[in-house]
């Protein structure tokens, strides 16, 4: 674990792998050190915004270092099911690049236990990870508009576009689930730590 300062009032905790990120982020959510306003996991990092009226960066760094050595990956706090129709426009490309059959790909995507590692890109867009990850290259040319509800793969991640937006992920399916709703509390269905299971609509 390495802890870097980010400007005057934030720390970036750098970890070796995504499992360590999930573990530390989960420990921080359960027991945030005093004066930590917000903790934001990334792919290999956790960013901590600190209230310098209540703490110092050094005190937070010491607290995090103590937690980091004992944090263990936690099972998802809750698991949401997402009904998925696997008819995305890139599914044939993914079958070619992985050498899988359509049924194998769907079986892998639906049987895998996904967990939201972190959010970003757009409100409610969760980067989903699994111990059984494939490595899928992004599209060489990103689409200018990906429809809301599109289910994609990129690198070690899967994800669902909460709304229409540009995007370079390989689209394998779609869902009608509402991923982001400002009137809901919390507004995002997929939050760091939440587990996800895709259910084949057939």
């Amino acid at each position: 674990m390495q802890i870097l300062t980010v400007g005057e009032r934030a720390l970036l905790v750098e970890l070796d792998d995504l499992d360590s990120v999930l573990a530390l982020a989960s420990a921080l959510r359960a027991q945030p050190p005093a004066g930590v306003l917000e903790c934001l996991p990334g792919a290999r990092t956790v960013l901590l915004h600190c209230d310098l009226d209540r703490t110092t960066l050094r005190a937070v760094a010491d607290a995090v270092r103590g937690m980091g050595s004992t944090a263990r990956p936690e099972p998802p706090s809750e698991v949401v099911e997402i009904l998925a129709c696997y008819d995305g426009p890139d599914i044939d490309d993914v079958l070619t690049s992985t050498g899988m059959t359509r049924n194998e790909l769907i079986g892998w995507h639906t049987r895998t236990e996904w967990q939201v590692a972190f959010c970003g890109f757009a409100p409610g867009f969760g980067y989903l990870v699994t111990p059984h990850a494939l490595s899928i290259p992004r599209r060489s040319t990103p689409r200018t508009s990906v429809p809301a509800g599109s289910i994609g793969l990129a690198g070690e991640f899967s994800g669902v576009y909460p709304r229409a937006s540009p995007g370079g992920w390989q689209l394998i399916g779609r869902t009608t689930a509402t991923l982001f709703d400002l009137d809901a509390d919390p507004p995002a269905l997929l939050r760091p730590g939440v587990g996800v299971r895709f259910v084949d609509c057939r």
Partner: protein
Amino acid sequence: MRDASPAEPGDERRLLVLHTGPLTTVQDAGRPGFAQLGIGRSGAADRGSHRLANRLVGNLEDDATLEVTLGGLVVRADHDLLIAVTGAPAPITVGAIVHGANAPLALRSGEVAALGSPPRGMRSYVAVRGGVRVQAVLGSRSTDLLSGIGPDPLRVGDIVPIGTAYGAAPDLDLAAVAEPTEGELTLSVRVGPRADWFTDTAMHALLHDRYEVTGESNRVGMRLSGPILERSRPGELPSEGMVVGALQVSPDGQPTLFLADHPVTGGYPVIAVVDRADVDAAAQARPGQHLRFRPAGDPAVGPAPSSRPAKTTMEPSAFIT
């Protein structure tokens, strides 16, 4: 905001929008606490000017104001209202009289106030006594142009509801403030968190050369143009959290200075972060203006010293361990 429903006809405290200028949005202190859902903080780009405008009319510091980009806003008061304009010093014309910025200004019901083009700076803040009371979203009335959350930018014909004034109006004529400059700006930075992704030459250029604000600038960030910031290592940075003031360097070696609506995560390395207090000044810089960056705590301001800095001056702050 178009279906605002004030209490009693004839008793509405509101502004009618007659012209918007290039861009006018509602802003307050933003919506902190949602970054892990992919929602940035947003809020006034120049928070100091936003707060001052509120203080001038006796509001709470973080009541919502109107953030007017490069002037051009014209509003009609449908009630007797007290307003103040801060930030970019747009002249305010009411009837035949032109008023200055940074002073409270009483509008009578039916009067029209027109913000002219500010001679310096990018963003003016219009506070109205009682505060702008459009519908709050996730605890904030700010428009986040990146995520699309919050009220839409103002349009002609919009009715802006104004809250009820509380407390006594402040008794002052003019706030003495330093207005935005049109010259070169020097901003304090803390190097890192990804200073080690760049060559010594790049770090020297960042801290001793100047960077021009380009036209590709908005509330999300300001694309800067200057000496190429060369990387010392290849590869991609896994997505990580971003902060306001971050100088993120894209693969072409040019930095972008993140402002209020910046993305919550990014995949390019951040070479340094501008101090929060100096982000306000940056948010007032116009395309064509030049920025210089100096390490926080370094008293040197102005032209670059000719000698290379000792490398150790920047390293201790980058690692807390």
